[in-house]
């Protein structure tokens, strides 16, 4: 099995309160991530405009080996900004739990499906590769998750991200759910996006790979919202030793590069 790393240091990592990256720094970090062999770099959120969008233009212009993707809300205007950046892949985050739908958006499940269809079609019609992310999947109704994936599958989406948005997963649950999804949608590649609220992001990512996920989202130093995301170095170390995957990564090289990247990121104390 080949496990590919999606590094989201420049998107979810930077969203941690207190972290601010300048355009030049984002570009520098992207080069370093490419150097250590990251398969895909989630470079940012073009809808933020300004420096954020410019940094993605500049990263694209580098012609790195890593594939570059952008993160978007399920919103046509956001997607237009992404299309401007001409990334290799465009990611659309689909709110999937009732908690998110009712309390944040005030919408229902049919609205999600309808909007998702519009957004996926909009991007695919422009010739871009699309992946979707099931936001808060770990608290969503599993049948609804399957419904979303079924619709996305019909629309030609080939990769689905399972996001443990609040870090509530444990390894057997994610292994089982990924396995169930994989059995129903054999042509869909699955990606795990784990948060570390209970200190189990690495463990859950390993569990997802056991279940059949072939993409794992990580950040350098595990930085990210709240307690952070799956720590790249820790994940690769564990995956190598326990699962025998990720062998192409050179740990010494990662340790050295991580140090340099964290130096660029700098002091991450948030102003309170």
């Amino acid at each position, binding site marked *: 099995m080949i496990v590919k790393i999606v590094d989201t240091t420049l998107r979810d990592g930077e969203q941690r309160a*207190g972290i*601010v990256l300048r355009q030049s720094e984002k570009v520098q970090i992207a080069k370093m991530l490419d150097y250590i062999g990251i398969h895909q770099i989630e470079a940012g959120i073009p809808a*933020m405009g300004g420096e954020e969008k410019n940094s993605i233009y500049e990263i694209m212009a580098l012609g790195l080996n890593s594939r570059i993707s952008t993160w978007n809300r399920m919103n046509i205007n956001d997607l237009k900004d992404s299309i401007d950046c001409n990334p290799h892949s465009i990611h659309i985050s689909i709110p999937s739990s009732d908690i*998110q739908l009712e*309390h*944040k958006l005030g919408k229902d499940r049919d609205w999600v499906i309808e909007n998702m269809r519009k957004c996926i079609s909009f991007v695919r019609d422009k010739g871009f590769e699309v992946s979707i992310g099931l936001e808060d999947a770990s608290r969503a109704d599993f049948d609804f998750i399957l419904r979303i994936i079924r619709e996305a599958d019909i629309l030609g989406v080939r990769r689905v991200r399972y996001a443990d948005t609040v870090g509530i997963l444990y*390894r057997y649950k994610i292994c089982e759910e990924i396995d169930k999804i994989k059995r129903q949608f054999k042509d869909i590649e699955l990606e795990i996006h784990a948060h570390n609220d*209970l200190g189990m992001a690495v463990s859950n990512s390993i569990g997802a790979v056991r279940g059949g996920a072939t993409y794992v989202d990580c950040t350098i130093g595990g930085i990210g*919202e709240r307690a952070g995301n799956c720590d790249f170095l820790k994940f690769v170390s564990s995956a190598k*030793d326990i699962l025998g995957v990720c062998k192409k990564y050179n740990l010494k090289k990662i340790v050295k590069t991580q140090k340099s990247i964290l130096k660029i990121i700098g002091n991450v104390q948030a102003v309170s």
Partner: protein
Amino acid sequence: MSVNLKNNRVRIVDRTLPEIFANKSSLKRLESIYFCWLLKDMGVDYFEINRAILDVIGKLPVGLDFIYRIENIEDINRCIKEGVKRCIVGFDILNQNYLMDVLKTHNINTTLEYPIYELEDFNSIKQLKDNACIEMIDTIRVVGLDRFITPEWVDKTMSIGRELNININICPEDTYSEGTALCLEGILNGMDSITVSFTGYGTKSGFAALEEVLVALNVLINKENKLNLSKLAQITDYYSKITGKIIPENKPVIGKGIFKYQAGIHADGIEKNSNTYELYHPCAVGQNRSLTIGKHSGKRAVHKKLKELGIKCRVEEAEGILDNIREKSIEHKRDLFDHEIIDIYVTCNMYCRGGCL
């Protein structure tokens, strides 16, 4: 206090002190004892100690239960002298009939520590059946386990308990960041006790982190009968103070930065209902939530912040200063202080009144 689940009372053993002392700690008597009391309030039942700790603590306080690590006959004598009722031994002690007889004679509850790192190691543990002293052992502490990612380890560990008619304690190491998950699985599957350390601290790769296990129990398992963990922030401060260890801002459960939020989508969600992006309320672990303003802030977050600062304005006005806030945040490479946000708002408004709009 223990953790009471439906059909199982799980006891918690903490091994933070010996791990701290292993690094030539200068912890004093009262500091060590007070730290134990704080952890007891969280649900810890037993505190592992050794001779080095006993030398510092001296007379053991009433009300706390200790497990003394025995390495030789002097330790046994000390254990008896200090009136410690529980001890932990390694395989080398188990093979010394005389020492085991002394422990038995003094009615000391004994735990045998046994490392398990590979599935094959489970086979060798069964050979204990033939050991003459095994009947003197009350509990087996299975230490290691960190490579196990399939449920097989649970069955094999439980079968040891059944075959030897003995209690099972697990002490997962955290080499592969699996410690917390292993503890939860152990608890869910009926193991009698777990051994953990505060922050997961340990001399090698560390252990399952006590605070992560407790919060995970509250959130995932013990929803009806939650432990009161509101003193966790106080314990964290005290731990840092007495050990000099700095807790990373994003350390799960106890990091000071884990309830700071800024990104537009998260800030919006949390303002509407904190459950959207928080697994549990900050006060459940003695912390507070705080909104920071910087590069990733959205219009609603800025609007809320301005309101907090006493500035009444419309959301559209807040949106109008977003670019300035982002520029300033990028310029300083940090989030903004309140006075800087006010400055931006005032400057933008003056400019607008002067002919911008």
